[in-house]
């Protein structure tokens, strides 16, 4: 059954799924589940939660499929659902952090060049995890998913100006966190 859909572009599958074709929707899940789950994982760093949120994304997608209009790629539409679902879930777990209230570090060159220890990857991941949720989402969508500012704005339903300020804050804060980790390591 799946083979019948391999050559079908998303557009046709979406139309069929909008008419209630569950098999067509299943093929869409097959195509988009891995990148969506990976994106959620990068936001929450939790495999189980990433699986749950990715499933939740497709269930919400199925329910809202009639609202989808092909003015944006289907994956961007799914990203939007996934990002919102993940942010909602993380907010339930973590106390909300107000990005605007956080002190910003000086815009000096980051210490990231100096972070060359063997557990560099773990440090980077830990630093990302410690970012406020709002800026972490923007950073992940930009740095790992390669979305443009406009796509990020659409995905998170925020103005482009907010995308720019959050991304800038995220990078500065990440630099500061990595510097702190490096200093702790030296001590």
């Amino acid at each position: 059954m799946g083979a019948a859909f391999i050559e079908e572009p998303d557009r046709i599958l979406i139309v069929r799924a909008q008419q209630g074709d569950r098999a067509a929707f299943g093929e869409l899940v097959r195509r988009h589940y891995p990148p969506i789950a990976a994106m959620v994982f990068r936001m929450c760093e939790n495999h189980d939660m990433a699986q749950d949120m990715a499933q939740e994304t497709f269930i919400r997608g199925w329910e809202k499929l009639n609202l989808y209009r092909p003015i944006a790629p289907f994956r961007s539409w799914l990203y939007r659902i996934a990002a919102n679902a993940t942010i909602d879930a993380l907010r339930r777990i973590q106390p909300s952090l107000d990005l605007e209230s956080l002190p910003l570090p000086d815009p000096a060159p980051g210490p990231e060049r100096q972070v060359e220890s063997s557990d560099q990857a773990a440090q980077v991941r830990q630093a990302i995890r410690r970012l406020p949720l709002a800026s972490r989402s923007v950073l992940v969508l930009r740095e790992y998913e390669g979305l443009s500012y406009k796509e990020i704005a659409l995905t998170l339903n925020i103005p482009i100006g907010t995308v720019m300020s959050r991304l800038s804050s995220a990078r500065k804060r990440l630099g500061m966190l990595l510097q702190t980790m490096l200093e702790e390591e030296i001590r």
Partner: protein
Amino acid sequence: MKDHPIQLLDAYHDGELDAESEQRVSRHLQACSTCRAALEGLENLSRLLAAHPPEPPPFALESALGGIQRRLPARQPTFWERTLQTGWQAIPGMIIASWLFLEAAFVLLILMQIFQGLGLWSAWLTPLPRVAAIPLNVFVLWHLGGSSLLGLLVLSWISGWWIRSRTIAANKVPLGSV
């Protein structure tokens, strides 16, 4: 150097500035070592992030499909879908109502012709216009033609309903078996 375009450096680094702003930042960078250093910091950070992407362990797609299938609710039809569905379901009723109307009109016209033939028209049917003397065979032909047409419509609807129900049944394939 004053007025460092710090706020624009991220967008410059990401290639998100318009041509004019990009040129302005480029010109500034040629003359400003502070901003060049800040830009280098951004580039290093992006390289560092790219070198250590938080790669998730593989996800079990089949298990996910099963999970989605179990939780997938029946899709709620939209307003237009509901309207269309109601209209579709009302078609046989409308055909039968049309057929009854035609039959009633046919019987009435026959009765009126009979009354006219018996000379009873002027006695108690004066408010009604006189019915032209249409031959009976024309009446019968109209009647048969109208009834046949409606019968064909009913058959078409039944065929449509059967095909539609077969299509829906065929589409009810579990997600996991796709």
